[in-house]
């Protein structure tokens, strides 16, 4: 009798623990009058943990939404600074004008930082969903090349297209993936040597499609690879004024949500090679 009682208790405790681990523990599922003393204590403890976990989630969500709100609010003062700054710049001459120009450049930086932060916090709080759809790749890539046209022309860069077919399809969210891939293309156009080539190649695999962007710039060292995806990381040797170091972080987060990823290669000797992998089929709905 004693042995069977202990075995039943053990099984009940085990079951309660399984449910708590999988996040399904409901206190009301267990009727206290039937449980042994030990089980009652166990149940109360698990119930309390489940509750505190819910509270933690709520708090996290509130903080994230606050960050999102703040970043949104900051936009207005920045536009105003820019507006008045431009007026002042026009009225000044010589050295003073130079100072005003530098002030404006900082405002640009601030604005770009805020924009990236807003996007990031919206993505992270799931306020905006990434909804992948199966669609052709070529139209998105054409649009991105167009977006980068100005920079491309200014630096005399040639964009080489490889494997771009009308039939090639993948499963992705056009708006967010454009954001992610453009970040990479933009970096390539920024860091490649003047008058060099940036190659955008599509490769198809049985379950994935890759978009590979290869530039002819200084490349990336193996040690740097894990770092470049961190927030605010900028290559130590690059003193570029534009850019804020959020692009790759954001790009990787977006791709994760689409069941894809970004791969950086160092085996190509000259320049950096970034490959974006997208699934061909929709994992959730097929």
């Amino acid at each position, binding site marked *: 009798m004693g042995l069977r009682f202990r075995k039943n208790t053990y099984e009940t405790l085990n079951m309660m623990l399984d449910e708590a681990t999988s996040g399904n523990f409901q206190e009301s599922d267990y009727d206290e009058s039937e449980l042994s003393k030990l089980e009652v204590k166990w149940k109360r403890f698990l119930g309390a943990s489940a509750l505190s976990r819910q509270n933690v989630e709520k708090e996290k969500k509130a903080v994230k939404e606050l960050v999102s709100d703040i970043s949104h609010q900051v936009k207005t003062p920045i536009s105003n600074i820019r507006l008045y700054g431009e007026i002042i710049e026009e009225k000044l001459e010589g050295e003073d004008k130079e100072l005003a120009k530098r002030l404006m450049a900082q405002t640009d930086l601030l604005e770009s930082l805020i924009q990236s932060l807003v996007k990031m916090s919206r993505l992270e709080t799931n306020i905006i969903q990434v909804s992948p759809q199966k669609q052709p790749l070529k139209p998105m890539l054409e649009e991105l090349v167009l977006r980068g046209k100005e920079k491309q022309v200014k630096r005399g860069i040639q964009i080489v297209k490889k494997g771009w077919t009308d039939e090639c399809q993948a499963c992705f969210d056009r708006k967010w993936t454009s954001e992610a891939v453009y970040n990479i293309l933009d970096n390539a156009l920024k860091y490649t040597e003047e008058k060099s080539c940036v190659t955008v190649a599509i490769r198809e*695999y049985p*379950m994935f499609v890759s978009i590979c962007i290869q530039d002819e710039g200084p490349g990336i060292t193996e040690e740097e690879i894990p770092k470049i995806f961190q927030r605010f990381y900028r290559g130590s040797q690059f003193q570029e004024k534009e850019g804020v170091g959020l692009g790759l972080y954001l790009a990787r987060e977006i791709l994760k949500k689409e069941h894809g990823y970004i791969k950086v290669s160092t085996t190509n000797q000259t320049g950096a090679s970034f490959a974006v992998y997208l699934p061909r*089929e929709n994992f959730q709905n097929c």
Partner: protein
Amino acid sequence: MNGILRTEELKKYYGSGENTVKALDGVSLSVMEGEFAAVVGTSGSGKSTLLHMMGGLDRPTSGKVYVDDKDIFSLKDDALCIFRRRKIGFIFQNYNLVPVLNVEENITLPIELDGNKVDRKYIREIVQVLGLEQKLDSLPGQLSGGQQQRVAIARALAAKPAIVLADEPTGNLDSNTSQDVLSLMKVTSDQFGQTIVMITHNEEIAQMADRIIRIEDGKVRKAGQFSDIPDDRIPQTGRRTTSRPSGKTEGKGGGYRG
């Protein structure tokens, strides 16, 4: 911060005196939770031995291995076997599926062997991401190499082990299928926060991982030791000289974080 997998001065010596073969000669490394790490080395570099040590499949001559902060070699054989089954997932080059069980049964086998409840929801998610939904009733013999390896990955992930160890997972696959299998390992590592350590001799494959640990002559090769890089590479930056003046990079980090 301790990693989910840690080795301390691992040594595996065979033989004695002049004939001693030092398969591993003091390997200390740490893998963080959720990382996808690759251990690269040529044949005979000690990488397979390292994997066997990390998985508790073989005991070292000296040194320790901690999985989830547990010193695995302090366990007796029976306890180690159970620990291994629960905490470590394996993916082998030749899939190692049970031919008389179907895909679904192969995936849930280790969990059921342990007498544990199968988390059906989690398995469904894994199966979806790995594209195996239509194949759950198939036998391994009816599947292609790539599909079989996907089943092996699902099996390794299903019990939610602390770490997954993969030994040349794409060794028997053609290059297109290899790329897919590696992509899936990367995606599942990201998606499910699964720590994966993969050994390979292939540099291209190693590039898929978040971090590369290089093994040579039974030791981890430290950053800065570029013994096989052509002369026109600057040791600190590790890349060819360019016409653009480049500043010095800090040469810290490298193949592994201690």
